[in-house]
């Protein structure tokens, strides 16, 4: 059987280290494998490593699977792992943080590798399911050791070809047009799928993508717009698979500058006042957004992480939707007549991102805040609001999935203090800063006891929630369209792996 599927974005190139982006990693995850992998429920499983243990607090030992062969027939050995770490740290790598730069690799024997750390790190291997192991000989033979950089005039061999150990081989790849995979007969694991091949086409336009599914041309498309879920379900021969996604969508406010860039308030920054932030929070009718914009395909969230990734998330509650209270808070803060503020929003990144921003704008209008919405494609949006753009925003919408599926990633990236240049919480665009939270984060990083760790994390969230550091909105839902007869696993991290597919 051949599976034909489409995704909204393109698989631009095949080098597994050059782009840290969910879809690219997911697509390459069918060809390449990491030392670990995650199953349907996102639990970590052995993959190229059969098992591992922390032999000393700072030394992790990985026992590699024997008899594994790359698609070109080469054997998989410890050499390849060491090589992959080296390459991962090479210039132009986008995934260098997968293995910290202070981590040393020691080859014990052909199938045993030690990782020596500078300090304890309980979550060392959490993101290793997307750190793919490459074949040393193949890479060197094809002169692909250096990771592609845009200034190179000849393309990196690894950007156009792939040689992994995974369940599928790459047959052909035309970036932006079509990618063809074929079943790898020599895979070490037992195949639970029944596919002979897979054909991937990127289809950017939502309507066209849905049409292609409805007309029976494709077996699977994702994502499908939430509004089309019903249509896909009603259509004979197709159905929509929905489920929660790990990504948390939230609003952020510039609390760092002394005067907002985009506002009619001059000389001071209203967002420095927690009452204003709280007013914004309470003005938002999250249920309305859930029902009307997300069509119930979202989970309103009280904290910045998905409940699936944090055991104590049930302890938190959202501030109630209460425009009157919001108005009162504003008045109290001295903005009885409201003020205007510019809002930055992507329009092709998250599910219904622009519609959410518009809805937020009209909700805020009710408490007297005039929002000037600037919604633009993600490339332009990120260029503006991220560090490289000088955090050029006053009020923004952002989504975040912690790559390690762990709260420390959130604290580190989104909540920790940062300086003007972005040192510290690099994606803490609003520049929220609390010494107490930062201190907690440091403790969390090195805490090996899971229960204590969770308690510390809960404390950090409570502190930042009290400060209304951000306004968490919801975890958006996943919606995949599947043709009848196709069964697959929908992982909450929005990765699509062919090994879970059966088609008849």
């Amino acid at each position, binding site marked *: 059987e051949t599976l034909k599927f*489409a995704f909204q974005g*393109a698989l*631009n*190139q095949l*080098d597994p280290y*050059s*782009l*840290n*982006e969910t879809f690219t990693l997911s697509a390459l995850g069918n060809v390449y494998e990491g030392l670990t992998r995650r199953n349907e429920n996102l639990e970590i499983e052995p993959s190229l490593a059969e098992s591992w243990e922390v032999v000393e607090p700072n030394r992790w030992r990985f026992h590699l699977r024997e008899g594994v062969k790359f698609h070109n027939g080469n054997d998989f050995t410890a050499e390849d792992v060491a090589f992959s770490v080296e390459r991962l740290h090479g210039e*132009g790598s*986008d*995934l260098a*943080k997968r293995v910290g730069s202070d981590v040393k690799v020691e080859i014990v024997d052909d199938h045993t590798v030690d990782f020596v750390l500078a300090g304890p790190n309980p979550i060392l291997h959490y993101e290793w399911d997307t750190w793919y192991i490459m074949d040393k000989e193949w890479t060197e033979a094809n002169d692909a050791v250096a990771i*592609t*950089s*845009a*200034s*190179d*005039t*000849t*393309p*990196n061999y690894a*950007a*156009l070809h792939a040689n992994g150990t995974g369940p599928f081989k790459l047959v052909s790849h*035309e*970036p*932006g*047009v*079509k990618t063809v995979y074929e079943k790898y007969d020599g895979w070490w694991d037992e195949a639970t799928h029944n596919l002979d091949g897979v054909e991937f*086409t*990127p*289809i*950017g*336009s939502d*309507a*066209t*993508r849905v*049409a*292609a599914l*409805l*007309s*029976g*041309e494709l077996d699977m498309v994702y994502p499908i717009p939430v509004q089309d879920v019903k249509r896909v379900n009603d259509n004979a021969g197709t159905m929509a698979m929905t489920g929660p996604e790990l990504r948390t969508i939230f609003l952020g406010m510039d609390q760092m500058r002394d005067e907002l860039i985009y506002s009619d308030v001059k000389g001071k920054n209203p967002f420095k006042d927690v009452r204003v932030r709280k007013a914004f929070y309470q003005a938002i009718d999250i249920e309305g957004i859930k029902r009307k914009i997300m069509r119930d395909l979202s989970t309103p969230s009280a904290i910045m992480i998905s409940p699936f990734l944090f055991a104590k998330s049930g302890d938190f509650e959202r501030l109630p939707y209460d425009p009157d209270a919001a108005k009162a808070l504003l008045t109290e803060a001295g903005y009885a007549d409201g003020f205007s503020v510019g809002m930055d929003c992507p329009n*092709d990144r998250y599910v219904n991102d622009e519609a959410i921003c518009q809805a937020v704008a009209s909700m805020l209008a009710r408490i007297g805040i005039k929002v000037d919405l600037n919604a633009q*494609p*993600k*490339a*332009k949006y*990120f*260029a503006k609001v*991220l*560090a*490289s*753009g000088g955090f050029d925003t006053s009020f923004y919408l952002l989504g975040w999935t912690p790559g390690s599926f762990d709260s420390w990633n959130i604290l580190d990236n989104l909540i920790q203090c940062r300086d003007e*240049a*972005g040192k510290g919480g*690099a*994606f803490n665009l609003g520049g929220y800063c609390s010494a107490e939270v930062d201190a907690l984060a440091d403790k969390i990083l090195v805490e090996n006891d899971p229960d204590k760790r969770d308690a510390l994390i809960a404390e950090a969230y409570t502190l930042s929630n009290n400060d209304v550091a951000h306004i968490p909105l919801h975890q958006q839902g996943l919606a995949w369209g599947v043709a009848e007869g196709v069964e697959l696993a929908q992982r909450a991290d929005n990765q699509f792996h062919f090994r879970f597919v059966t088609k008849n």
Partner: protein
Amino acid sequence: MFGFAIRRLLQAMIVMLVVALLAFTLFRFVGDPVNQMVGIETSIEEREALRERLGLNDPIPVQFFRFVTDAARFDFGTSYQFRQPVSDLFAKRIPATLELSFMSALFALVVGIPMGIYAGLNREAALSKLFLSVSLVGISLPTFFIGILLIFLFSVTLQWLPSFGRGEVVEVGSWWTTGFLTISGLKALVLPSITLGLYQMTLIMRLIRAEMLEVIRTDYIKFARARGLPDRIVNFRHALKNTMVPVITITGLQLGSIIAFATITETVFQWPGMGLMFLQAVQNVDIPIMAAYLLLTAFLFVAINFIVDILYFVIDPRLRIGRA
């Protein structure tokens, strides 16, 4: 004729140079390419280093000079998104766009010309008025909307024709892929060609009609009738041929804009051509692709113009001999 060709060629080169300058300067201000090349977690120092390596910190004239000399060698650099030479990417995409444009132009001409002739010769006939009114719909609805409605009707509801892509393509030689040789390839061409060609068809039809109306009032047509020539000869050999001169100009220009408008059609039908790549490049601020696309469109346009000028010589003896 030779001198004329040389002169046109020179002008074309100047046009290309100016376009290059425009493309280059405009793109220097669009977004930040570095952000596109690296992942979200790359540090600021790393970004700065990359910026330096790409030459994005060089003085602008240096960058422009590099741009032009490279472009002259068909080297448009490496795409930020795809990490591949832009020229290779385009080489793969050009067949798709050209085949689509060709089919649309064919559709526009094959349907538009006879309708235009008919409407011009039978000004008051009911059928002419019907042609005119119906064709107006073609220019009254935005292309993307027509495309979406066609998909809705023919792909989703009737399931006759595919809604996206080129279908199966066959390689012809080492550098061309064609959809003309397979059933699915031909089927895939139908909807996009109609969507793209509808507007041009309307224009061509109206243009021919208007020209026809004028030409059949000229003295030489009157004289041709006075000579007792049959209507067929008068209408086709004399009138139609004389309408061709302006029609060729406009059609030529329209062909250029077919290629440009393909952007939208390709987006709607996920047609893997240059336009689709360009639009994605705009969204991802992939400067090398954008620059190459603009230069390429300009080049195609200039080339078409050149051909149109040469066609004049073939059609209009006054020029052929007058210039020699």
